């Protein structure tokens, strides 16, 4: 459904997406979506919308008025040089960072700045980080169900059932009572993705989840991500895995200079990048053999 609305750039300078525009209905993107032939619904509320988001650490400005719209079912790949702000963007969406300026909408509600209950928001998102982050003192089952039991207040029996379901789906049923230190990195990241998905989030945020893994373990995690994408999970994925982006992304966003410098369908970004910066970034990737 989102296949053609990416071509009009998300470039901050082009988009007069006013920060005070609290009503997404009057968003200039909306008319484009209306005309989208693959979209059966006349207008669909964006899953996530970032409007002119600014974020700096000290005097280092990382995000400089970044705009981004994610529709339901989108798989958006964020690419860009290391340090360009991909993690920061994801952390902002998950409310782990506070914004300097701008706002973030999640299913039509402004969640930043000044959300009342950030836990209620986080419960409807899942996030997996680059570093291996399972709780080392809990086994796989307990890792999977902690959020369900404590945050979602779901009964032990239901949580167990859900965990078994997800583990079976991820081919990890035999690891249910293992502790993380006894799992391979790939298995740990798969459990972490399961832990993020088990609460049926509306949005899955993945931050370079394969970067910390040995090369031979990357494949199993990417396969899982592809499966989730095929299942219709809305995903915002920061990645260096260009193969994944080419194959799975509904839209690729190249972050540069604190904004989405260029975005489009994978074949557009990788095939015929319009700006010089994008071309240069891709050329560097090719030199490094990563494209």
């Amino acid at each position, binding site marked *: 459904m989102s296949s053609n609305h990416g071509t009009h750039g998300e470039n901050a300078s082009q988009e007069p997406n006013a920060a005070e525009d609290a009503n997404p209905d009057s968003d200039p993107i909306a008319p484009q979506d209306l005309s989208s032939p693959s979209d059966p619904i006349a207008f669909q509320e964006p899953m996530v919308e970032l409007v002119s988001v600014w974020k700096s650490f000290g005097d280092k400005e990382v995000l400089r008025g970044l705009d981004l719209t994610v529709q339901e079912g989108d798989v958006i790949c964020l690419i860009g040089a290391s340090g360009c702000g991909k993690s920061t963007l994801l952390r902002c969406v998950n409310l*782990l960072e506070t914004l300097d300026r701008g706002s973030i909408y999640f299913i039509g509600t402004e969640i930043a700045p000044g959300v009342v209950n950030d*836990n209620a928001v*986080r*419960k409807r998102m899942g996030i997996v980080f680059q570093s291996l982050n399972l*709780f080392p003192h809990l086994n796989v089952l307990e890792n999977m169900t902690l*959020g369900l039991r*404590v*945050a979602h207040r779901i009964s032990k029996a239901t949580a167990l059932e859900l965990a078994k379901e997800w583990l079976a789906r991820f081919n990890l049923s035999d690891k249910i009572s293992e502790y993380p230190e006894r799992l391979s990195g790939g298995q740990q990241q798969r459990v972490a993705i399961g832990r993020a998905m088990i609460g049926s989030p509306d949005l899955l945020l993945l931050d370079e989840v394969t970067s910390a893994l040995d090369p031979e373990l990357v494949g199993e995690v990417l396969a899982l991500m592809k499966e989730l994408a095929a299942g219709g999970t809305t995903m915002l994925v920061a990645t260096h895995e260009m193969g994944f982006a080419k194959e799975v992304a509904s839209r690729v966003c190249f972050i540069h200079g604190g904004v989405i410098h260029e975005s489009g369908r994978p074949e557009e970004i990788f095939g015929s990048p319009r700006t010089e910066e994008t071309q240069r970034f891709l050329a560097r990737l090719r030199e490094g053999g990563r494209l």
Partner: protein
Amino acid sequence: MTDLTPPSALPSIGPSRRRNGSGGFGGGRQRQSSQDGRQQSSFGKSRPSWYVPVVSVASTMLVVGTASYFIWQSNSRQLVEQQFFNREKFWDSFPDVVGGFWLNIQMFVVAEIAILLVALLVAVMRSLRGPEFFPLRVLSVIFIDLFRGFPLILLILLLGFGVPTLGISYVPNGVLFWGVTALVLSYSAYTAEVYRSGIESVSESQRSSARSLGLTQGQAMRYAILPQAVRNVIPALLNGLVSLQKDVALVSVLGIRESVREAQIEVARSFNFTPYMVAAVLFLLISIPLARLSDWYTKRDRERRTQTYV
């Protein structure tokens, strides 16, 4: 004892490494090669299996024997025996001192439980984030600074003698209660810092992970951070336990008839120091096993960690 004796292969490895380091890259290599002959021969011939036990037993006997010999030879031996190791006085004072020691143990157990809880509360208060918790953070810092700043003995005197004179109706007025309270406050301040170091040793990303699951700050602390933090500081907590077990005796200054006080009374009556030795033996009976337990746990913990992360 055996810990002090290096394993047989190590001595030849240790020095050669050091030489390599201090000699720079090129020089070290050169010099080492001139000694390679000797190095290799000591490397090749490993020490026989009896070496470690025999050397440790022999050296122990040498040290203990020498010390005993000099004590035995000294003119004051008889006096020492009379004043400190008088068998008759030992058994005379034994029942009272042991009776007092039972109170020591009770105070120790109650105080330790209270310390572990109060300190945890203070440490968690100090680790809370966000402007709304600012007052709690300030309170915990004041608590720690204050009660760590006092000499323990002064705190015991102040609270033990001072507070009961106020005659406040809604708090207990016993000397014993306030003596133990002084112990709890002082040790809690220290122990809170132990907990806090544990909390800070848990990586930031663990906190992020917990929060991202929708856990509140308190829930993240309870289910994700604290279990790891406490595990990290158990050796330090055990250390505190050993130390508290002895410091409980300080409340004797309040006239509380625990073992040291009982011993003191006996000593004053008989002009003989043997009752103190009774108390000393009783304390050792508790503190040595505790110290060994602490060593054992610390060692096991270290081994487990190196196994995990190597």
